[in-house]
């Protein structure tokens, strides 16, 4: 076991968090299929059953239309994890390119690019997402992924730039430069692979934030559109009917909060284990 993984495995909170995320992944990926075998799905309504509190047949209860909340929470988790992961990938690509080009180019280009990052950083990025979603008037998940990714890359760009600045004067980069390696080759073949570990760790830290963005937008009715379930829409429905059917908020709300908790623990654990400088 490498020293990094050994450090990680000694971090109890991170290990428990990783286990919990494994469980959530299992439930969201396989859960809906198992439920389908039992004759349950996320959208079929049982109006006669109506809103029922948690029971053996429906562990998290059912909503006002008689839909099983457990399956809806698993489906919502699938959407949340997919959006979080893909948005982090978008942010990874943009952030690495932006920070890498700025760091390697240096001088005025670097100053201008990083100044732009500072400016974006200070603006209320989520409001821009709301405006674009409303103007395009689409509720597609792909657009949501793109927009959340487009506002999540700023921290990563700063970190990648710092890494590139530290690496660009090293001997192997000078050697590559002296035999005529171009800008892109220097950056993507000789510099960034050496920073890959750090970059991946910080990209993992983006996932919980992106999931919260999705839930936030869906809660406001500007993200994933009903009847599809997402953790944001489930919490919104639960909050609206909290007084009469408290279990509508309890199940999805607690599971979402625990998942984000766990992702933060794992992210912090990975950072502490693999980026000891921080």
């Amino acid at each position: 076991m490498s020293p990094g993984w050994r450090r990680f495995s000694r971090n109890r909170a991170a290990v428990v968090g990783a286990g919990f995320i494994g469980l959530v992944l299992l439930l969201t990926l396989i859960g809906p299929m198992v439920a389908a075998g039992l004759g349950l799905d996320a959208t079929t309504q049982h109006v006669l059953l109506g809103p029922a509190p948690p029971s053996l047949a429906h562990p998290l209860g059912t909503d006002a239309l008689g839909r099983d909340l457990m399956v809806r929470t698993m489906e919502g988790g699938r959407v949340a994890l997919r959006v979080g992961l893909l948005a982090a990938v978008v942010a990874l690509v943009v952030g690495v390119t932006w920070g890498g080009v700025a760091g390697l180019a240096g001088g005025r280009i670097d100053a201008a690019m990083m100044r732009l990052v500072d400016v974006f950083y200070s603006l209320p990025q989520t409001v821009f997402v709301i405006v674009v979603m409303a103007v395009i008037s689409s509720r597609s998940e792909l657009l949501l992924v793109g927009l959340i990714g487009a506002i999540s890359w700023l921290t990563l760009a700063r970190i990648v730039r710092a890494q590139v600045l530290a690496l660009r004067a090293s001997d192997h980069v000078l050697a590559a430069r002296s035999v005529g390696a171009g800008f892109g080759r220097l950056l993507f073949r000789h510099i960034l692979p050496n920073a890959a570990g750090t970059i991946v760790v910080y990209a993992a830290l983006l996932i919980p934030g992106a999931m919260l963005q999705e839930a936030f937008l869906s809660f406001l009715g500007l993200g994933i559109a009903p009847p599809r379930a997402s953790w944001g829409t489930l919490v919104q429905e639960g909050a609206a009917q909290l007084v009469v059917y408290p279990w509508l908020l309890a199940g999805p709300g607690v599971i979402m909060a625990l998942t984000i908790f766990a992702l933060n623990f794992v992210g912090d654990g990975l950072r502490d284990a693999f980026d000891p400088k921080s």
Partner: protein
Amino acid sequence: MIATVVRRAAAAVVVIFCVATFAFFALHAAPGGPFDRERQLSGEARRNVERAYHLDQPVTAQYLGFLDGLVHGDLGWSMKRPQRVAAIIAEGLPASAELAAWALAFAVFFGVGLGVVAAAGRDGPLDHATRAVALLGVSVPAFVIGPLLVDWVALRLDLVPAARWDTAASRILPTLTLGLAYLGVIARLTRAGTVEAAQQDFVRTARAKGLGEATVFFKHALRPALLPVVSYLGPAAAGLVTGSIVVETIFQIPGLGAALVQAATGRDYPVLCGILVFYCVVVVAANLIADLAVAALDPRSRS
């Protein structure tokens, strides 16, 4: 110092100009004409409406007109309500500003207090408790905490109103919901700053002079310990804006955030873009003020 202020202010104006340009072209790119309804307007009526909104002019003229209006504080007319955008903003601003002020005051007051206490009892129970609160604030979003507070504090215990924005008691739950995330971050920043300041040479010197612990802390250690908190308040402004959107929705507060959501779901593009520009002005100004405050507080930055 004055040169810095002027340079930063000029940069802020450029940023606002870029945001306004984005807002205009977002407005322009909105699908369909603003008056596409089920029932089409007849030719003459349509031309009249288009003239009223300057839609008969070329894009460049519209853009210049938009910027000209912006400089004069005029953001045009709402497309859904017989009101100017500026009037809608003026209507929502008092409630939003008050909510943000309460939340910030709550977060700074208790955050700094908790942070200092946590630093004093390092690795003690209170230190762990503030870390837990900080993590809670970051991980559990306001739209989960808010409804839970409504359920327990307002409906079950019946201590405060569940919604609206009229009595003094109605301020409590929205303030808690919005402020909790910042309380956690500020407590952690204060703790880190205090721990670091306590190890500085000038603090040791102050102790060596025989000053009491209270004097050392309040006159020497506190100021550098709070610098990270002050510089965090600028970026926090952007978060407060975003957070107030969801808090105003939960508690039915007639503020700017509620107006923004209404405009977004109702496709009232001029209101949407007007509030975006207004938010950015506020946030850019807050960042500018925070930066200048740090410069004023930090003797190392004086030249």
